[in-house]
């Protein structure tokens, strides 16, 4: 860094240099971490730790207040193509999941084990502590009534994620202004070199799950509807949401210490939780 050199401070060259250093460190860390990381939560949850679990039928939604210290497991028992998620700070619902910040701050759209779900206030709503799928989408969102009409035609009546989120939000006193962009798990969407969004057929497996360790008291909404880019033939199945009591944090928690950005996001969260 060049902070000691007053002539260089606050010049475009100073900021460019600092940005390139941040980018190089982040992309190096991201590429090394993708080689594999021991899961932080167990594959089999001790039954004594389970607070509640819910089977969400295909097409339906579920919402719940979940306290810090719990983990939400989304279990895709039958390989259904997409489970969309929204999250709000339970105490101040104007603070909510921000998919754009989530991918921008972490320098990747590939959200998987070790990555964080960030709010618009620079804080950690949840950490991904286990992920057997690794194929999630934060760019193309969830299904809508109009999208389903184009995809399935007028004769097929299916539920959609946007309406599901409006319903879930309403049951916590929230409305359409609170329903922003979402993240869809088990949605294997990648970009090709021309920027096309491509659904990676065959990338979903029965029994895949993702663990979201809840870092602030939150309201969660899940919508179990196929992702808008999934094939129109994809059938939808039930999924299981499991809320379980998480062991206390290890001070060497890999999610917290994964990157300098993660450390700073957790510092913001810690500071908020202190008062």
């Amino acid at each position, binding site marked *: 860094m060049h902070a000691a050199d007053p002539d260089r401070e606050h010049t475009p060259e100073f900021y460019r240099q600092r940005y390139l250093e941040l980018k190089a460190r982040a992309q190096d860390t991201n590429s090394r971490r993708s080689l594999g990381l021991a899961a932080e939560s167990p594959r089999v949850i001790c039954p004594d730790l389970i607070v509640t679990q819910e089977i969400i039928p295909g097409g339906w939604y579920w919402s719940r207040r979940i306290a810090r210290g719990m983990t939400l497991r989304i279990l895709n028992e039958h390989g259904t193509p997409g489970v969309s998620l929204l999250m709000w700070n339970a105490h101040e619902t104007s603070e909510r999941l921000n998919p754009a910040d989530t991918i921008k701050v972490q320098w990747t759209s590939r959200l998987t084990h070790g990555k964080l779900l960030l709010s618009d206030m620079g804080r950690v709503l949840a950490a991904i502590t286990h992920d057997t799928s690794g194929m999630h989408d934060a760019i193309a969102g969830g299904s809508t009534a109009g999208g389903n009409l184009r995809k399935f035609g007028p004769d097929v009546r299916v539920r959609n994620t946007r309406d599901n989120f409006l319903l879930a939000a309403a049951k916590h006193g929230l409305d359409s202004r609170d329903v922003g962009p979402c993240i869809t798990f088990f949605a294997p969407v990648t970009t090709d070199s021309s*920027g096309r969004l491509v659904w990676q057929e065959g990338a979903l497996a029965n029994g895949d799950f993702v663990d979201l360790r809840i870092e602030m008291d939150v309201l969660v909404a899940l919508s179990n509807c196929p992702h*808008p880019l999934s094939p129109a033939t994809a059938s939808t199945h039930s999924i299981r949401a499991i809320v379980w009591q998480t062991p206390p944090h290890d001070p060497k928690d890999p999610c917290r210490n994964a990157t300098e950005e993660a450390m700073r996001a957790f510092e913001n969260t810690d500071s908020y939780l202190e008062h």
Partner: protein
Amino acid sequence: MKARAKTPLRRTEPAIYDHIIPACCPWSGIVRKGQILRIVDIEGQQAVDTLFYSADDFSERYGAQETLAAQGTAYIGVGTEILSNRGRSMLSMIADSVGEHDTSAGACSCEANTVRFGHHTRYMHACRENFIVELAKYGMNKRDIVSNINFFMNVPVLPDGTLAIVDGASKPGDYVELQAEMDVLCVISNCPQVNNPCNGFNPTPVRVLIWNG
């Protein structure tokens, strides 16, 4: 790269509205159905963070994810139909002298800046500060901020998910044109960010013009 408009629409008739947004400042205005909004990147490499709301019902607003899912590509360009959160067409992008524009990386904020660039950047001006002040004129607040379009901001999303803001592709005078498909409120933050390349590390003014269609 997305196809560029081969013959830029050089409008000869006078615009009904012509305004320079100073560097780092917000702007808002109504664009009526059929009217054409042009945003000019006067000096080049200047991100223009933009939100749209239905003028008749502000709860209907730009849907970045809806727009990308419907077009099946990750960027905004000529031919993009800008959809609302209800899946209705808000505007069509009819001209673009650049090629690709981001809509996945959102707007900068003081809070996100602390995470991205360090806690010492908290007290630097940011787009969401602009948005909040501008939206307040219409009775809206932070809840009403959704993922926006970043005209002239270059954020390639690679096949492995790697995503970073890189140097803007826009040259001085580059512009985009959008034709409104409904009456829309357009809210802009002329991005003040200096911690990444979205403004060439040097925020500059942009110009907005409106023509009757």
